[in-house]
């Protein structure tokens, strides 16, 4: 079995109101010096098989087709 982690983040230049709200909340909690927060998503996948490069290809296709909206999001695939 192969374990992988996909991280989806907003592209630079795409406004992130949720990140802004979290940034504000951190300030309210007394965490000074937080200059920026950008929020995103993490997907942990478990795939049958043992071929890591095949798995990476497959997960990249999953990102392109469903996991990320490439109009506004970037993704990174990490085989664990």
């Amino acid at each position, binding site marked *: 079995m192969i374990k992988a982690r996909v991280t989806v983040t907003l592209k630079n230049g795409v406004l992130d*109101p*949720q990140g802004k709200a979290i940034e504000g909340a951190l300030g309210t909690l007394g965490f000074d010096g937080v200059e920026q927060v950008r929020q995103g998503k993490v997907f942990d996948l478990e795939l049958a098989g043992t071929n890591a490069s095949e798995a990476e290809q497959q997960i990249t296709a999953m990102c392109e087709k469903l996991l990320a909206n490439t*109009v506004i999001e970037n993704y990174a695939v990490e085989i664990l």
Partner: protein
Amino acid sequence: MRYKAADPPDSASGEASIMKSAVLLLPGLNRDRDMIAALTKISGNPPLTVWQTETEIPDVDLIVIPGGFSYGDYLRCGAIAARMPVLDAVRKKAAQGVRILGVCNGFQILLEAGLLPGALMRNASLRFVCREVELQVANAQTAFTSHYQAGQIIRCPVAHHDGNYFTEGETLKRMEDGNQIVFRYANGSNPNGSIHDIAGVINREGNVLGMMPHPENLIEDAHGGDDGRPLFSAALGMVA
């Protein structure tokens, strides 16, 4: 899964229309009944309903994807619905020139399906907005807006959490230059932070329209106005 709309057609508009319409049904959509009632009242014909697993859509002139919360808005609004078999059928119909209208979640689904450019993000206020806005008809020369005047301001209800339209600069410029922005929030009523006040966009071919506001909820006096009605009468090819 088929049901009849509860409302009888308005007798005045019941005869002339020969245009047929279909409304897509996906789990989690909840504005389908409003849409069916509006299409029935305005055209005189109840629309067909097409369930998400269908791979063919019957011959119709207008296909509508109504609003709601398909698949609970999981992953991203409209993302999972956009990968259902019926969307391949919609894609085929769109390529043949059939008119496609997506409202609210239907708009989000059309974007996720790649039938329209751009994306809809969380409202800038982070709040769900449910109120009436003013819309400017930015392009009155489409199959959907030809019964409005260019620049006309109309009222329309909105109800959404993710209506903040975004697309990157080059695409935005191409859409502006190509008159693909059909509706804009007017008079400072932008409820969601949408770029260029965009409320509705059309594809380059002019047969696929997506919009966040709900014209189906303003079609008769009982709604407090009928500013949404011309959109359906135009899309259904009726006489203005």
